[in-house]
């Protein structure tokens, strides 16, 4: 059980090392102390960290289970600690004494023969209680004095380092304050070496968090790529978008509805216009409406939000105009039903059963209603095309619909249909971002695989990539 835990956390090497340590070194005396203990302000941080470093004879590394790092308490902390210790000692002594005195009294009081024998009468109880309190107060006084007499350990253990480590990052310190640290080596049998103190160090706030340097580089690099791609697209460069099967299927499905003389049902999701999925859905609606106008198919759009209804009417009207058939536009086909999820579903499901649309298109943000809608669509043998980025609903759409625009594909389709340079350029920039990810993964995996065949340079490079470049 314990080994399981270790292995999961620290890797197999450590288990081997520990097992070997335990096997070869039983109980030993105190281990040798670390040397050259220094402390320095942590470079390029927000002023709340410090770095403690030390040296240790590597030959002795096997005999220890690690190092313990201490911090000297500040004068304020010490004073507070002293008072707290005294108060705690006094209170504990008082409570213990009074409790035991009262317990005796209570047991005397409840057992009848003691209660009525001698001078112990009910009237005496307050007096006895007061006596017990006085006695306890005396005990408290003694305990407080005793606590003051004991030397106060001026250091507080703040962390542990592994045997192969030679530095420790102390975090959550106060900014611009002076601190003193000490380090000890910890033997296998929990014995502790002599302590070695470092010179005092003052924390300082720097202009930039150095540990986040690589992150900043990646972040601003990625931003630059996206901005560059958008600029390129606005400058007239034509961005290609690959064929998206679900979009091709749309035209075919609308054509089928015309052939069968049945309506096309379009659901723009359950959310309001502040949701990006709804916006993408409405963009796709423009295209659907345009095709419907060209093919002369009847389009129906029930919505769950009144604002979505307005947006959909705008989009559809525009599409009918663009198709040159403004007279065919019927605003009554685009209706707001209700905000309530199941109320909306009940309406749409009823409508589906009555009208039997030949094609059902679901584009937007969906929750549990994805199931009910696509099931009903299936029951009336409609062609169903769905698109959403809501991952929890994707499996249901994929299983029940003929075509599904999956996640990013949905946004890409919307960007493609909108034709806006900003959208297309951004899509292209994102592609470059993903290609960078692929390149880094391929590089890292190759290095790590080569490293696994005992090529230390490759291993080190893979580690540097994974733990320094990408983690910071």
């Amino acid at each position, binding site marked *: *059980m314990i080994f*399981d*835990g270790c292995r*999961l*956390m620290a890797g197999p090497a450590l288990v081997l090392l520990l097992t070997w340590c335990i096997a070869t070194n039983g109980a030993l005396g105190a281990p040798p102390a670390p040397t050259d203990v220094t402390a320095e302000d942590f470079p390029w941080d927000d002023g709340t960290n410090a770095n403690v470093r030390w040296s240790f004879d590597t030959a002795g590394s096997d005999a220890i289970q690690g190092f313990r790092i201490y911090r000297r308490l500040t004068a304020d902390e010490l004073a507070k600690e002293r008072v707290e210790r005294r108060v705690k000692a006094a209170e504990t002594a008082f409570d213990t004494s009074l409790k035991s005195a009262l317990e005796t009294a209570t047991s005397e009081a409840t057992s009848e023969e003691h209660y009525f024998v001698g001078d112990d009468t009910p009237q005496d109880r307050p007096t006895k209680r007061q006596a017990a309190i006085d006695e306890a107060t005396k005990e408290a006084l003694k305990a407080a004095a005793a606590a003051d007499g004991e030397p106060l350990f001026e250091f507080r253990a703040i962390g542990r380092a592994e045997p192969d480590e030679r530095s420790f990052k102390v*975090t*959550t310190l106060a900014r611009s304050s002076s601190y003193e640290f000490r380090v000890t080596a910890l033997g296998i049998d929990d014995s502790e070496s002599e302590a070695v103190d470092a010179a005092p160090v003052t924390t300082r706030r720097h202009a930039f968090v150095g540990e986040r340097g690589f992150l900043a580089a990646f972040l601003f690099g990625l931003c630059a790529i996206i901005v560059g791609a958008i600029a390129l697209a606005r400058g007239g460069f034509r961005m290609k978008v690959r064929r998206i099967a679900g979009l091709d299927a749309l035209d075919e499905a609308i054509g*089928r509805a015309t052939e069968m003389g049945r309506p096309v049902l379009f659901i723009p999701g359950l959310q309001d216009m502040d949701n990006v999925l709804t916006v993408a859905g409405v963009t796709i609606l423009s295209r659907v409406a345009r095709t419907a106008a060209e093919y002369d198919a009847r389009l129906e759009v029930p919505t769950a939000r009144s604002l979505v209804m307005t947006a959909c009417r705008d989009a559809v009207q525009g599409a009918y105009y663009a198709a040159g058939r403004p007279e065919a536009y019927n605003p009554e086909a685009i209706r707001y039903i209700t905000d309530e999820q199941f109320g909306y579903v009940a309406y749409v499901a009823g409508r589906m059963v009555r009208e039997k649309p030949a094609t059902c298109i679901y584009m937007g943000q969906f929750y549990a209603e994805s199931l009910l809608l696509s*099931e009903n669509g299936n029951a009336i*043998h*409609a*062609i169903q095309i769905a698109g959403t980025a809501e*991952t*929890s609903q994707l499996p249901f759409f994929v299983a029940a619909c*003929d075509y599904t625009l999956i996640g990013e594909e949905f946004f890409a389709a919307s960007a493609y249909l909108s034709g806006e340079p900003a959208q297309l350029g951004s899509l292209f920039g994102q592609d470059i971002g993903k290609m960078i990810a692929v390149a880094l993964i391929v590089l890292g995996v190759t290095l790590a695989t080569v490293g696994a065949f005992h090529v230390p340079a490759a291993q080190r490079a893979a580690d540097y990539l994974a733990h320094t470049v990408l*983690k910071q």
Partner: protein
Amino acid sequence: MLQYLSTLDRRVVFLLMGLAVAIPILFPLPLSYKPSVLAQQAFDAIETLPPGSNVVFSFDYDPAASGELQPMANALMYHCGQRKHNLYFMALWAPGAAICSDTIDGILLKRCEGYEYGQNYVELGYQAGLAGVIKIAVTDLRQQFKTDKYGTPLDQIPMMKGIQNLQPMDLLVSVSAGDPGSKEWVQLFVTPFPATKMVTGTTGVQSVSLYTYIPNQIDGMLGAIKGAAEYETIVNAKYPGPDGKPLPELQEGQRRMGPQLTAHLLMVTLIAVGNVVYFMQRKASRRSGHARGAAR
């Protein structure tokens, strides 16, 4: 038969599902579970922390998800309590704060010893702001959390001494049903501040999307009721109740695995039968010469 199945009223299916779930509840099935690696990792993350470690425990769900998540919250809290960790409770969902108080009364105060408010557990309660609450709590908790849930200023709570933000926490436990929840904790807390480990309990719906964070960002995860049942098994084996038997509160997850068996069998059967009907119908309609366009 084919005709009957193809036109089957879906309320018949509803009835079947109802029975599949109801019968094992009325007549429980005594089943046992082998703990998976993930549940064991979650257990180890809490178990290997030295007693008295600081743990922030976040209730990020509402009653709608408590059927899945309450067994996890119970078992995780009980385990933390047995390990005598210092517990800082908070909630990113408003109902989570109420659920948290109930769980503390039912588990921590009833089944774990030595817990005293302000000394080794504190309820920071709910704050509005969704993921923004995490963002502010990891750098300057007291900006938003002026008081605890009961209106006591944080300065007057002993265990809040020296806690300016969540960075000194050794472990984060998030029981989460969605947004904001585990994903936001990973993004805003344990990734920028990797010194804090993380264990999470999640609903079946979102558990799959969290696998990508294991094991570098999330140390252990309990996914769906199965994760809860496995975790209960491990905890019960190590920390049984006073009479040596598992506690009743720590069997809820296992009890709810009974209906899973029957209901999953029903699901598999329904998919299979549905497809058989579909293909036979398709064959029949092909033979009679009118293929449906929808079938592809």
